[in-house]
């Protein structure tokens, strides 16, 4: 256990500079890039006095960096240490408030998306490995490569067309999957954690649970399918190795049904690396979430970011990016630690 602790400490120490670097990069992008944010924010109506005033309010009249402590960079970092992500210029509320409001939606979407990616990925990967060198195998492998080339927002739109619009036409207007929002307008959800499905379960509101699940289907599938590609390939590769092992031969020799051998014995041994890969895919997941949310009018952090960009709400942009950076760094840290826990060899 001592080596695990040492590893955790080392890894933490490494994370801090990385976060600092990311924060600095964000700082640089927002401050140093050409284009004056204040002018952009105020628009053509801004008088020179207003511009000066806003500059001062936002602390933008200080030097960006200097030897002393009175510069923008230090202000920026100290604000962050106090948990202050700035105030949204468009909504006039602290950015943090907005993030707290929108984050659970993204969380719920990504959880379901990951689950779909995982299950689709490992079962197709296992199936392909078992049916090696058949048409099914080649098709699944092609899927694994191709699915990632599909723009996630296009997949979303196509799913909307097929399962939202056409399905409705085919069933005479009776059934279709919702293509926008988290929950029907006529239901006002009980909110505890912000995860509607979970909240529905907690409060015993069956309607809330089913309705939000229905709304989750298409967006989660969009996110999940695109991400599943890499899980398919990874599982298939692992399964091919595992299927060659002695204990699988041994299980066959004892007359255990092939399906059990493949999906119970073999898959059990093959899927652990996929779990850790899930953690590593978190960055892609975030990017995917942004595009999925805009396609499905899903009120999550991705939509908020895009909105902030359109309204030129720089504090909001900055705040959201910082939040995402911290999130990605923490997930990566947790995944590495969990992996070191499972596989002792990594610690050395």
């Amino acid at each position, binding site marked *: 256990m001592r080596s695990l602790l040492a590893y955790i400490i080392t890894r933490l120490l490494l994370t801090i500079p990385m976060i600092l*670097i990311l924060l600095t990069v964000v700082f640089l992008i927002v401050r140093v890039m050409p284009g004056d944010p204040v002018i952009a924010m105020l628009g053509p109506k801004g008088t020179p006095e207003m511009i000066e005033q806003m500059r001062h309010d936002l602390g933008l009249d200080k030097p960006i960096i200097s030897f002393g402590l009175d510069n923008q960079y230090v202000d920026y970092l100290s604000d962050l240490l106090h948990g202050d992500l700035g105030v949204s210029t468009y909504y006039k509320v602290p950015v943090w408030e907005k993030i707290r409001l929108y984050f659970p939606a993204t969380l719920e979407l990504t959880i379901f998306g990951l689950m779909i990616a995982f299950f689709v990925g490992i079962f197709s990967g296992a199936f392909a490995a078992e049916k090696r060198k058949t048409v099914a195998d080649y098709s699944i492998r092609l899927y694994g490569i191709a699915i990632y*080339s*599909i723009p*996630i927002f296009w997949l979303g739109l196509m799913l909307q067309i097929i399962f939202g619009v056409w399905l409705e036409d085919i069933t005479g207007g009776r059934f279709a999957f919702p293509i926008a929002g988290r929950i029907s307008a006529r239901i006002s959800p009980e909110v505890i954690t912000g995860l509607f499905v979970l909240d529905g379960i907690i409060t015993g509101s069956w309607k809330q649970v089913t309705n939000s699940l229905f709304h989750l289907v298409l967006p989660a599938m969009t996110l999940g399918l695109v991400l599943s590609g890499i899980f398919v390939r990874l599982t298939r590769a692992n399964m091919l190795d595992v299927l060659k092992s002695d204990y699988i031969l041994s299980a066959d020799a004892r007359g255990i049904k092939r399906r059990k051998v493949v999906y119970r014995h073999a898959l059990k041994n093959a899927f652990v690396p996929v779990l850790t890969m899930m953690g590593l895919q978190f*960055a892609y997941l975030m*990017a995917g979430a942004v595009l999925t949310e805009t396609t499905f009018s899903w009120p999550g952090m991705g939509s908020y970011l895009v909105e902030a960009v359109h309204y030129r709400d720089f504090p909001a942009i900055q705040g959201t990016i910082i939040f995402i950076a911290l999130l990605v760094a923490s997930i990566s840290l947790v995944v590495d630690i969990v992996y070191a826990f499972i596989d002792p060899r990594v610690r050395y």
Partner: protein
Amino acid sequence: MMGKKHRAEWYIVVVGGVILTVIIFMSVFAPFLAPYDPLASVGDPFSPPCRDYIMGTNNLGFDVYSRILHGSRTILLISITAALFSATVGIPIGLMSGYYGGKLDRILALVMDSIYSFPGLILAIVMAAMLGPGVINISLAIAVIYVPTYFRMVRGQVLSVKEELYVEAARSIGARAVTVMVRYIFPNVIASLAVVFSLNVADAILTEAGLSYLGLGLPPDLPDWGIDLAKGKVFVPLGTWWIVTFPGLMITLVALSFTMIGEGLNEILNPRLKEH
């Protein structure tokens, strides 16, 4: 065992190459192939695919097919430019950082790793937002994301080759650092570079499409598949599937062709242990 062509892998590269060639042909000859002006309303809005408009018209009456043809130029131009930017910056920095080593190298590596671990699209969104619209701007925004990719790959190669004897030998006869880097180390890198570049362009294509889908980075009068998707998205409930289906399909095909070339080359150059 020499000369055994890995048939499946060559198929993949060839198919990818063929698709790409068709698309390049499309983009080069777009003005001649397009039956209509992509920026003008030429028919009734929302016409489904028919003889006059083989891919239908969009909400403003523009011919989808003409926009597809012209759009190929935009996307190819931007993504290849971005990839070239990244390579031009990332490769030399990677070479030098790996070769000279030391504190600067470690700091650079850390910086690059940090950027690499961050979701690229989101970084591009912020950069595009700050830089404003424009073809150069969007190429730059996308390019920044991939610099770490080249940096890491090249630096990794440099580190592994640096200790080889023939490099020592070259240095002992007084070869200048640049010479050593260019003549001895770089050639080892080239094969992997082709793979990374292909996959990079594929990714850049998807990023560019994503950015323009979000309404960032491009002037509104440039025909672009991402913009078409963004504009067409609202009309999905109307059942006008052709407005969004074709542009998205094209994005997929171009990205797929580069991916196939890249992955196929990868299998050929770095064959995995033979499967049984």
